[in-house]
């Protein structure tokens, strides 16, 4: 439903269509240049401009974590940042975790521990867990649960997700 006279600001009609901006992103080790409108989120740039649909759009409001990627090594919600703001950044998505044909230890652990059912949240879970392991703040199952709370799994695979992360932590 449209807003009627919300906060201060010009109406939709008076804003001229802004020019598209050129953004350089290093995605999974490949440098790419995109022309995007300022309001294109990083998530939409990855999915719709680069065809990297592994990163999922769940809630699109930073509440579910399905869109989690690594930006310069840190896990973020790609739906809550603009592509233009990430100009020059190194972005790692689920497509960039495997190397030389071998699954990333987290990917293998999610298979070994049966850590998903429908799989929609899994790319975000795995990218988030990769960030968690880099941060090195989680030492116990309690801490894994707390520091993974930004990733929801509506199938309820949580116990197996924790087990998968514990498995990968032993290897990494």
């Amino acid at each position, binding site marked *: 439903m449209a807003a009627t006279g919300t906060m201060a600001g010009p109406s939709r009609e008076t804003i001229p269509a802004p020019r598209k901006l050129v953004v350089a992103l290093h995605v999974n080790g490949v440098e790419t240049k995109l022309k995007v409108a300022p*309001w294109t989120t990083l998530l939409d740039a990855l999915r719709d401009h680069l065809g990297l649909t592994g990163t999922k759009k769940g809630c699109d409001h930073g509440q579910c*974590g399905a869109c989690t990627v690594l930006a310069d090594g840190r896990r973020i919600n790609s739906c809550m940042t603009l592509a233009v703001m990430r100009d020059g950044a190194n972005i790692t998505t689920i497509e960039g975790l495997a190397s030389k044909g071998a699954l990333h230890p987290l990917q293998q652990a999610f298979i070994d521990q049966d850590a998903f059912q429908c799989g929609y949240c899994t790319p975000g879970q795995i990218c988030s867990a990769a960030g968690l392991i880099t941060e090195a*703040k989680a030492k116990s199952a309690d801490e894994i649960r*707390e520091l993974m*709370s930004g990733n929801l799994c509506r199938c309820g695979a949580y116990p197996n997700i924790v087990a998968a992360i514990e498995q990968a932590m032993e290897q990494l």
Partner: protein
Amino acid sequence: MINFEYTRATDVAGAVRDITADPSAKFIAGGTNLIDLMKEDVERPGRLVDISRLPLNTVEETAEGGIRIGALVPNSDLAYHPLIEQRYPILSSAILAGASAQLRNMASTGGNLLQRTRCYYFYDTATPCNKREPGSGCSAKEGLNRMHAILGTSEACIATHPSDMCVALAALEAKVRATGPAGERGIAFADFHRLPGDTPQLDTNLQRDEIITAIELPPKGFAKHYTYLKIRDRLSYAFALISVAAALEMDGEVIKEARLALGGVAHKPWRSTAAEDALRGQTANKASFAGAADIVLNGANGFSHNAFKIDLARRTMIRALTQAAQGTPQSQANKKIR
């Protein structure tokens, strides 16, 4: 999301010039709240001035023995900074009680102060809301108000401020540094956020052409006797029903100095200096803690779905002060309340 123009600021003076030149412009730093509100059509800026690359991202000791936190330090970096963990652990704890790891990696220190209420009706543009559309009415007073305020409310608005970090900053007596066209100024934390009164559209006393550059912490960190205790509807990643920042300086069993601030209860972080005055010089026990809680809650008023918060706040304060006095702060990982 509406269409908008994008400008990237390279220094503070330029950012102030950019925001002054375009009355429809807003600053963006972490974006975790603003982009969400833009997707909901609640915020409709004609231009975003990106300040995320300004050189305001350091944590430094001040000559006075305190700490100066750059406005763009991400919440996670601040929570895990060694100086904060060692000297102001209540601030680390409060930050880690809020949001998710991803959001804390994105959200800035200054932006945390400026995040807006999560009142459902503020977000829902199909309903009246005096904060979003002054004069349209308050849907929360007679609506779903479980998460709403019990202190400092007005006829116009019963929204709460959602931040955890700010509750600790209120208890620590932080100071906000801001720069605008007229120059630089300091704002005491207690004067930064506003009560709704009849102008609920104004969350803070920061002017729209001012930019937060830093938060300053005074030397007193209460590193030995503190807790941040947050009660919510799920164990993690939820806004507070009630949160309490309690910090004490003890001389044996006697309270030498006390700080007490609450989140989830008002339009601003609710610090009670009257309760702190009452605690000073008292023996730390349930009776003195209950007395302080009664002072905080004097004048509290519940609505149809949140009247339970008055008693919950009382019990949370008593438990938090007990944790602080014992030197056993609440863990933000293991949620058992001891």
